[in-house]
């Protein structure tokens, strides 16, 4: 049995044990009482049986005496001997009347009835006496149809036996009742006779309450054990004793069955049993109550300990009240001591976990806890989280020492705390303080940030003898109704701080769009990988017009990415990601392979074009990749030009220049891309053995309107020519620009005015169309103004 509660278990076990013991005692008492009652009733019954038998003996002796008198009467003998029936009968009737016997019969010498009763009784007696060779009077019980008779028979001797004088008394109900009145206790008597089958039968009116077979069994048992037995009857259990009675013929046996109701026998013991039951019940109640009390008192300290342990587990105080002096008290004391030390340690751990050890300020974790706690209470106005970055903190630490730097942080916190007493300030990282204010409306966020900045922009007295000018940058994040997690809120304020630093602003409000773009970049990176794997990148070509040849002599290969979901993705965006993640290798390889294949196909169509390919500066330092590029370009059927920005070279000039020189030695052309936008350095321009200079579109777009731009372009063309390079102008869109550039001696023009980038499929008809029609037919818009100008 499984108990959920120890107290129940103890109570049930103790109570059950005691109850079982009480029950056993009660049963034993009851059995003893029954046994004792049965024994005493048995003795009483046996004594009564003896009395009954004695009375019957006396009765039968009286009958016998009279029967004997008759049997010895000479006149009677003579009458019987001479077969004088009338005399015999009269003598018999005379005596029977005197004796008041129920029945009687005279048997002749041949054993047959001569006078008296002629019923079944006389037949039964006749057959019973036939076998008896008696010279003396005999007596016994004879049953006729289960009804017992007490029979005496005296032989008539003269001197041989002339016959029998027989008298019989009914042992009927009234006889039994008469006997029963002799007894001190209300017993019932019945004479039972055994039938040939072994069953015992008696008068129906005396045995109707019994089942014949069970009664017979009980009689046999009682005869065998000479003791009382229990028998069930219609009137409840009875105590029964069977005593054998003499039979007339020595064969048919009879017993005297005396019964006494068990209920009567137990009646005398009823008070005793009642008292026993009462004592037992009272004892049981006391035992149960005592068991409950005992188990409760045993279990109570255990329960207290359990509750304390659960409290401790849940982080609450887990002290146990001790009000005893036993082992449980020792345990409780030990538990209390343990709980206190655990609480102490937990406090230390919590303090360490939530505190910046150096400054004793709350750390980021504590800041999160505070925001979490305040977040749902901020109401409609929302709350603000501001990340305050201390600029040049590393520098300060390096110059003034770590302790000084920490003191500075503490000072800043103290200043802010003194102004904004409702704000919660913590140290998010070494050089960043976090401040949160709740509630704070959205329009108050920036003024708050400005106030902070204004206060901290002053000269801060760090120690008594040292002060410092501090510059702080603030990232501000305000939340209204949305409820991001505390961690996200802090992170967004930090992102705003990063944005501020990147944009050199002193205060920046968190911009969800930029945030989502940053998040999107990660996704895009994955998609870029997938696109490269699946060769989703297409190469488009923008034609370059050669002024001297008057036709399209080259194209610039431009990568295009049409994403199935995003649609067109800006090359500026994904190329930057490709450069950052290293995908630029695969991207460049794919473009290179496509270009080489397309160049072959063009040549097969009779079109010879040089192809320019953008070559990232990051690839220049990868010698392995450079070698691969060279190997591929060796098989080119036409001219291949690699467009490289100046800055690429500037980052690592030695390797960059070496790579460029190798390319050049292998017959590849080098183009300096986006000339004029980067940090152009004449010294590098001198060193790079480029074949071409591409002037950035920013200059060309302004060439018509800006005098200075036109001058710069002209100078650049001259400079390039001076250094032995061709010049290509990018962003040529108008006829004016086209004409000006031609006038300036520009070698080639590229831009929407010539043609937009197009797919290979469109490039072929475009070139064919262009070469057939010539520039004037193909590009009337460019050529017409020139004509007008000239």
């Amino acid at each position, binding site marked *: 049995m499984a108990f959920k509660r120890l107290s129940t278990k103890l109570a049930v076990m103790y109570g059950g044990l005691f109850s079982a013991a009480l029950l056993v005692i009660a049963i034993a008492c009851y059995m003893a009482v029954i046994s004792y009652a049965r024994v005493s009733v048995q003795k009483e019954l046996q004594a009564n049986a003896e009395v009954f038998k004695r009375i019957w003996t006396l009765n039968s002796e009286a009958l016998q005496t009279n029967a004997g008198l008759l049997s010895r009467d*000479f006149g009677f003998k003579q009458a019987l*001997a001479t077969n004088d029936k009338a005399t015999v009968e009269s003598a018999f009737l005379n005596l029977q009347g005197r004796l008041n016997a129920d029945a009687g019969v005279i048997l002749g010498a041949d054993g047959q009835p001569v006078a008296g009763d002629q019923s079944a009784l006389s037949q039964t007696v006749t057959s019973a006496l036939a076998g008896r*060779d008696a010279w003396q009077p005999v007596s016994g019980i004879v049953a006729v149809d289960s009804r017992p008779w007490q029979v005496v028979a005296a032989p008539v001797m003269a*001197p041989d036996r002339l016959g029998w004088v027989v008298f019989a008394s009914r042992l009927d109900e009234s006889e039994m009742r008469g006997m029963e009145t002799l007894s001190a206790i209300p017993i019932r008597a019945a004479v039972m006779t055994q039938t040939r089958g072994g069953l015992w039968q008696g008068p129906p009116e005396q045995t109707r309450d019994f089942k014949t077979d069970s009664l017979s069994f009980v009689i046999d048992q009682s005869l065998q054990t000479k003791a009382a037995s229990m028998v069930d009857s219609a009137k409840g259990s009875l105590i029964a004793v069977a005593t054998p009675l003499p039979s007339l013929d020595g064969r048919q046996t009879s017993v005297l069955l005396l019964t006494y109701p068990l209920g009567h026998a137990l009646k005398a013991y009823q008070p005793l049993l009642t008292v026993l039951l009462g004592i037992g019940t009272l004892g049981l109640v006391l035992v149960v109550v005592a068991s409950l009390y005992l188990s409760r008192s045993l279990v109570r300290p255990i329960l207290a300990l359990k509750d304390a342990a659960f409290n401790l587990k849940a982080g609450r105080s887990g002290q146990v009240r001790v009000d005893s002096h036993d082992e449980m008290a020792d345990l409780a004391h030990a538990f209390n001591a343990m709980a206190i030390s655990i609480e102490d340690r937990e406090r230390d751990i919590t303090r360490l976990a939530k505190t910046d050890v150096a400054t004793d300020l709350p750390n980021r974790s504590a800041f999160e806890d505070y925001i979490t706690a305040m977040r749902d209470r901020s109401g409609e106005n929302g709350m603000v989280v501001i990340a305050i970055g201390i600029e040049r903190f590393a520098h300060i630490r390096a110059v003034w020492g770590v302790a000084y730097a920490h003191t500075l942080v503490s000072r800043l916190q103290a200043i802010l705390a003194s102004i904004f007493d409702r704000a919660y300030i913590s140290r998010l990282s070494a050089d960043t303080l976090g401040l949160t204010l709740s509630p704070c409306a959205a329009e108050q966020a920036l003024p708050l940030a400005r106030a902070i900045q204004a206060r901290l922009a002053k000269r801060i007295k760090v120690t008594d003898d040292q002060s410092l000018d501090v510059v702080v940058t603030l990232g501000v994040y305000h939340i209204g109704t949305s409820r991001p997690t505390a961690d996200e809120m802090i992170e967004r304020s930090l992102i705003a701080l990063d944005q501020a630093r990147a944009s050199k602003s002193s205060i920046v409000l968190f911009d969800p769009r930029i945030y989502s773009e940053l998040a999107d970049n990660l996704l895009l990176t994955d998609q870029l990988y997938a696109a490269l794997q699946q060769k989703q990148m297409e190469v488009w070509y923008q034609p370059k017009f050669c002024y001297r040849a008057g036709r399209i002599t080259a194209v610039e290969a431009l990568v295009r990415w049409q994403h199935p979901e995003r649609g067109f993705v800006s090359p500026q965006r994904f190329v930057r990601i490709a450069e950052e993640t290293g995908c630029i290798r695969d991207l460049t390889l794919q473009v290179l392979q496509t270009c080489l294949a397309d160049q072959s196909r063009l040549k097969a169509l009779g079109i010879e074009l040089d192809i320019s390919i953008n070559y990232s500066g990051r690839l220049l330092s990868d010698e392995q990749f450079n070698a691969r590029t060279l190997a591929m370009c060796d098989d080119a059927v036409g001219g291949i030009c690699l467009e490289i920005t100046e800055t690429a070279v500037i980052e690592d000039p030695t390797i960059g220049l070496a790579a460029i020189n190798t390319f050049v030695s292998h017959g590849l052309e080098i183009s300096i891309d986006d000339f004029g936008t980067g940090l152009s350095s004449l010294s590098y321009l001198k060193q790079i053995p480029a074949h071409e200079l591409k002037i950035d579109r920013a200059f060309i777009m302004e060439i018509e309107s800006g005098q200075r731009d036109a001058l710069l372009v002209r100078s650049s063309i001259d400079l390039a020519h001076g250094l032995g390079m061709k010049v290509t102008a990018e962003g040529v869109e108008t006829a004016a620009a086209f004409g000006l550039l031609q006038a300036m001696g520009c070698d080639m023009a590229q831009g929407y005015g010539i043609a937009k980038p197009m797919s290979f499929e469109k490039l072929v008809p475009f070139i064919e169309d262009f070469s057939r029609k010539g520039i004037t037919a193909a590009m009337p818009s460019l050529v017409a103004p020139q004509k007008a100008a000239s």
Partner: protein
Amino acid sequence: MKIVFARLLVLVACLFAAPASTLAADLTVVVTDTAGKPVPSAVVTFAPANGAAIAAGLKAGAYTMTQKLMKFAPYVLAVPAGATVNFPNQDRVNHHVYSFSKVQPFQFPLYGQGKTRTMKFDHPGTVAVACNIHDSMSAYIRVVDTPYFATTDMSGRVTLAGVPEAAGRLSVWQPMMDAPEHSVSRALASGKSGPQTFAIKVRGGALPASGAY
């Protein structure tokens, strides 16, 4: 053997003075119960097949059933048919002797000391005799129709003298015998001699040897 036989013959002739018409001899019979104990008061008779007349002298013999010390003596008296039995009373008290036997019912109402009564028994059979006023007194008179009869003594032995060596029937009667008519018999072939033994079943275990009851 012949000498012995001759002596016996002389003895019998002297005793009974009977004419030795045929060859005759003594016949010894022993009666015991089934346990081998001798049975007294048993009447042994031999009836020749061809009959035997009872001599007048034998009938006229003195047969007495005395009442003495509140008893009949003897308990069993064998007499030949036609014999007369005396019933003298030697007790101080009176007796009322009677019999309801079919053979010869009679009664002698009270008679005193020194007095006697007589009764002639002509028919063979058993006569049970009792005293009306003394229930314990009983006796039997066995009336036989053959001259060869005797009553066993306490040793259960009897000798029939002068029994002819002819075929016949040898019978034993005893009042307590458990047999039809309290009697058993067997046929003896002619010339058969030598002792005969009977083992009879006697009722009631103890015999009322002295006429008790």
